[in-house]
C-alpha cells in the first residue's frame, strides 16, 4: 500500500502536468487561429498571379520555360522531396505521419534517386541519417513564417531543377483540414503544371507590356512556385498547431482521469488507515 503522503505528492504532480498541458492547448488554439488566417491570406496572391499568367500565356512560348519543362524523368527519374515537419514535439502523430508518408513515397517509387530537403528539426532527426543525400536543411523557423522563408526553401529546389540535377520536386506536408484531422499531402512542385491559356473575354485584351511579356512571364513563374511553398509552410504550421491542440486536449483529459483514479485510491488508503486506528483503539480498550 502506498503511503498517504506519496499519494498526495503523486496527485499534485499530475495536477501540475495537467495545468501545463491545458496551457499548451490554449496557446496552440490561439496560434492555430492566427495560422489559419495566414493560410487564407495567401489565397488572393495565388489567384491573381495565376490570372495574370493565364492572360499572358498565350503570348509566350510556355514549353521553353525551364520551370515548366516536362523531362522524361518526371515520373521515374531523380526527384527531390521537400519534407515539412515541425521544430517542436508534443504534437501527436504530426511528425510520425510525415515520416511515414516519405517511406510510402519511397516504396511506391522504388529505384528512384531521391534527395531530401528537410524543413523542421523533427524531420531532420527522423530522416537525416537514413543515407539519402540531404540537399538542404532548414530548422528553427521563425514564429511568423513569411515570404522570405518560402524563398529560402524554394531556392535550392528551383536551382537543382533548372540545372537538371533533379527531374522533379515534390512537397510532403500536413495540410490543415480541421482541428482534429490533418491531411497528408504529397504534391508536385516542379515542373509546374502547365498554365492554362485563358480563353474568355479577358484574354482578348491587347496589353502593353513593360518589359516584354516573356520577361514578365519568366519573373512571375518562380514567384508562383514560392507562393506554393509558402502556402505549404503555412498549412503545415496550422496543422501542427491543430495537432498539438488535439494532443494536449487528450493529455489534459487523461490526466483528469488519472487524478480521479488516484484520488479514489488515496481516499481508500485514508479510510483504511482510519479504520485500522479505530480497531487498534477499540481492541486496546477491550484488552484492559
Amino acid at each position: 500500500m502506498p503511503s498517504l503522503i506519496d499519494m498526495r505528492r503523486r496527485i499534485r504532480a499530475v495536477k501540475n502536468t495537467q495545468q501545463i498541458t491545458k496551457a499548451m492547448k490554449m496557446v496552440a488554439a490561439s496560434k492555430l487561429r492566427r495560422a489559419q488566417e495566414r493560410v487564407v491570406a495567401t489565397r488572393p496572391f495565388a489567384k491573381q498571379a495565376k490570372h495574370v499568367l493565364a492572360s499572358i500565356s498565350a503570348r509566350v512560348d510556355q514549353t521553353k520555360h525551364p520551370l515548366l519543362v516536362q523531362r522524361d524523368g518526371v515520373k521515374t527519374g531523380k526527384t527531390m522531396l521537400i519534407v515539412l515537419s515541425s521544430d517542436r514535439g508534443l504534437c501527436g502523430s504530426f511528425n510520425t505521419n510525415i515520416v511515414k508518408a516519405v517511406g510510402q513515397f519511397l516504396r511506391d517509387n522504388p529505384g528512384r534517386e531521391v534527395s531530401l530537403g528537410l524543413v523542421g528539426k523533427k524531420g531532420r532527426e527522423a530522416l537525416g541519417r537514413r543515407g539519402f543525400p540531404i540537399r538542404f536543411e532548414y530548422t528553427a523557423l521563425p514564429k511568423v513564417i513569411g515570404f522570405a522563408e518560402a524563398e529560402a526553401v524554394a531556392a535550392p529546389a528551383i536551382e537543382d531543377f533548372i540545372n537538371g540535377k533533379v527531374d522533379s520536386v515534390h512537397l510532403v506536408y500536413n495540410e490543415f483540414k480541421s482541428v482534429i484531422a490533418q491531411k497528408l499531402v504529397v504534391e508536385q512542385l516542379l515542373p509546374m503544371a502547365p498554365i492554362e491559356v485563358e480563353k474568355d473575354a479577358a484574354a482578348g485584351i491587347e496589353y502593353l507590356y513593360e518589359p516584354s511579356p516573356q520577361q514578365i512571364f519568366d519573373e512571375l513563374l518562380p514567384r508562383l512556385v514560392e507562393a506554393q511553398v509558402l502556402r505549404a509552410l503555412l498549412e503545415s504550421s496550422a496543422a501542427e498547431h491543430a495537432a498539438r491542440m488535439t494532443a494536449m486536449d487528450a493529455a489534459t483529459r487523461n490526466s483528469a482521469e488519472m487524478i480521479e483514479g488516484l484520488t479514489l485510491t488515496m481516499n481508500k488508503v485514508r479510510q483504511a488507515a482510519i479504520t485500522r486506528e479505530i480497531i487498534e483503539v477499540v481492541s486496546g480498550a477491550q484488552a484492559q
Partner: protein
Amino acid sequence: MRLEFVTPERLIAHEEVDELQLPGEEGSLGVLPGHTPMLVALKVGEMWYRKGSEKFFGYVGFGFAEILPDRVTILARIAEKADDIDLQRAEAAKRRAEEQLAEVKRSGNEADYERARLALLRAITRLQVSQHARRR
C-alpha cells in the same frame, strides 16, 4: 477603379481608388481610370493611391501590376502600407547596409556589393515612404 494590392503573405488593400502611382521598372507611372490595359514589372519604390482627396502611401519591393481600364492588380513580392513600416527596423537596416557597403569597398566583392546596395535601397525607400506619408 478597383485596386487589388496583394503580396504572397497577405492582402494589403482591396478598395475603390481614383488615382494611383506605381514604381515601374522602367520609370514611375500614374494610372487613372480608363487606362489602357498594361502589364508592368515593378521595382523597389514608393507607390501611392488617392481616394477622393485622401492620399495613401505604400512601399513596394519588386512585383507586377496588371492595369485594366477599371481595375488594377498589384502583385508585389514585398509590400507595406506606410503605417505598417517599422521605422526603427528600417533605420537599423540602413545603417547595416551602409556598413556593409563600406566593407565591400575594401574587399571589392561584386555579389556582396549588389546585396548591400539593394538592402540600402530598400531601407531608404521605406524611410522615404513613411516620411511622405507623414508630411501629407
